[in-house]
């Protein structure tokens, strides 16, 4: 990582890989524990943090696999650390069981999935966006989850910091998703000064020693204050359905409440959690909906179209889950056509269709052959949709 403006505190301009941008953002957000297992194309995150964390007093451990990596960060989070792991598809599949534990036990943590071509070993060194629905549904049982992405290093930095903030705010795992292209590409990144971006600290209980503390009692504002392991409140954490002290329960009323709580605390806040960027949307008659690195190709198309006076807009999603259906619906209301631009078989397409008023006007521009989607690819779909042929 090469940098200019090397004062310890001021903003620093660096030229880095997306993976490093993500790792630096985690440090900015307060990361103090990382556990991981190498896998292409995410390994640079672990490598960067193996160097940076101890230098800043944090801790890095290379575990024996991805299952244990996910488990280790959950354990560390309970002591009050901000934690993260990073992997790619095969490792992310292995993490699903423990990810579900973090959801059930409401443990703040951040999981990075740098997507490569799947299924299976697939295309290890090439980008894709094949894990979008897996993030939502990969672990068994009803649940909800937050997933965010970005398309430039600067935005990825901000999104990762936001990911840590959301994890702490909602006591939930947050998945930061991006693809190999962004992970390995290098570009300019300005690391903001401390304080420039908001960071949310762990909300710790104010219940004093000796007074009954309820780790799973939601406050009026929806938050659940925590108490660090090793502190004065000894409670139980389990992956079973549990009562407000964390002890197992099969009482139908308790089960019902918890099941709805886990689902609703995120799904009912979809609008609040939605983060999008818009380009040329003011008077757009055709809208591209995209996310992650393909959004750059889409933006290029919009940029050029606007220079030619074409009313094309881009809605770039940064929150993928809970799906920002309201935002999408409003943005696509009364447009002539919507084209979802993504690097998979249309995983977001179906959600966009479900969200908008006229699903028959939603089309797909995609690529699944391991190559990056180009502006030309998108323009071709645009022409076809507009009835102009290839």
């Amino acid at each position, binding site marked *: 990582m090469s940098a200019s403006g090397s004062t310890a505190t001021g903003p620093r301009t660096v030229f880095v890989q997306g993976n490093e941008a993500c790792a630096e953002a985690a440090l900015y957000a307060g990361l103090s524990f990382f556990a991981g297992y190498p896998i292409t194309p995410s390994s640079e995150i672990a490598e960067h943090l193996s160097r940076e964390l101890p230098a800043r007093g944090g801790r890095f451990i290379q575990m024996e696999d991805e299952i244990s990596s996910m488990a280790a960060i959950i354990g*560390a989070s309970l002591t009050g650390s901000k934690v993260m792991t990073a992997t790619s598809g095969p490792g992310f599949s292995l993490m699903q069981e423990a990810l579900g534990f973090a959801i059930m036990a409401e443990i703040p943590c951040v999981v990075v999935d740098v997507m490569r071509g799947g299924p299976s070993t697939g295309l290890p060194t090439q980008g894709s966006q094949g894990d979008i629905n897996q993030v939502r549904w990969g672990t068994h049982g009803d649940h909800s989850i937050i997933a965010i992405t970005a398309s430039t290093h600067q935005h990825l930095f901000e999104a990762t910091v936001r990911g840590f903030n959301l994890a702490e705010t909602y006591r939930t795992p947050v998945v930061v998703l991006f693809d190999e292209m962004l992970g390995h590409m290098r570009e300019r990144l300005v690391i903001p000064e401390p304080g420039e971006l908001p960071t949310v600290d762990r909300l710790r209980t104010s219940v004093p020693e000796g007074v009954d503390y309820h780790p799973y009692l939601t406050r009026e504002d929806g938050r659940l204050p925590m108490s660090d392991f090793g502190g004065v409140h000894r409670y139980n954490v389990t992956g079973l359905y549990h009562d407000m002290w964390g002890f197992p329960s099969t009482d139908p009323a308790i089960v019902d409440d918890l099941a709805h709580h886990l689902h609703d605390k995120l799904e009912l806040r979809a609008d609040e959690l939605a983060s999008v960027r818009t380009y040329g949307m003011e008077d757009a008659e055709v809208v591209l909906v995209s996310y992650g690195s393909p959004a750059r190709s889409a933006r290029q198309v919009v940029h050029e179209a606007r220079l030619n006076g074409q009313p094309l807009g881009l809605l770039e999603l940064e929150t993928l889950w809970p799906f920002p259906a309201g935002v999408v619906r409003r943005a696509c209301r009364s447009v002539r056509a919507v084209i979802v631009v993504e690097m998979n078989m249309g995983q977001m397409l179906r959600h966009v269709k479900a969200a908008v008023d006229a699903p028959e006007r939603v089309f797909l521009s995609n690529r699944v052959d391991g190559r990056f989607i180009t502006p030309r690819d998108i323009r071709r779909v645009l022409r076809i949709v507009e009835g102009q042929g290839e």
Partner: protein
Amino acid sequence: MKSIDSYLRTRFMPHIWCPGCGHGTVLNGLIRSVDAVGLNKNELVMVSGIGCSARIAGYLDFHTLHTLHGRALAFATGVKMSRPDLTILVPMGDGDALAIGGNHFIHAARRNIDITVIVLNNRIYGMTGGQFSPTSGCGIQATTAPYSSIDQPFDAVQLASAAGATFVARTTTYHVNELEQLLTRAIRHHGFSVVEVLSQCPTHFGRRNGHQETVEMLRHFKEGTAKVGSRQLAEQVDLIPRGVFVDEERPEYCDQYAEVIQRAQAARAGGAGGEEPQ
């Protein structure tokens, strides 16, 4: 000692284990050794997986983390790495520790991270209803071995030793004083410590294998084992050895990591990027 009850979450008692289940005896001995070591409950974290044995965590008034089948040691590694000052206890069933959890077991041992593992070895999967486990051994009846098992067993002591554990011991639920002493030594040991406790599951192991009741099974622990170094053991090769098998001092993982932090910060203080390790 402080009263047993002061370590228990008594509102959940009586516990859910079957009459005569050895896991209760381990709970009993564990409380006594924790008391003997003289630890504050706020400094104690118990991390368990899934299984009858894992239920121990629910009854103890420590910080308790009831995790996933086989993964307790991975969770525990995270807890310990970020709070090396806490004492971590990990009770595990033989299935939990050595079937699905085998890899975490050998890797935690290899790292010599300061965690105390208690393997409650009842040679069966109790919680799921009596399937054979990697310690059942050949010739055992189990719900998934209706024609008697053909699987060679692991020796937990040998495996832990080969993997790098620095304190390794074995006892049984019959030898309750030894149990307390070994657990006390294990908790005091600075490094990865394993105490295998042969424990009875009358419900699934006993019933299927010679219809043994609790008391018979305990007698078997008494008669079928002998202390390491004893004459008895030398003479009767089929006895299972009890006692301490490994007790070594080797660099502990969190201590080592503290040095990594020092090295990293020294390099950083040293200045120019060029001087950092590549």
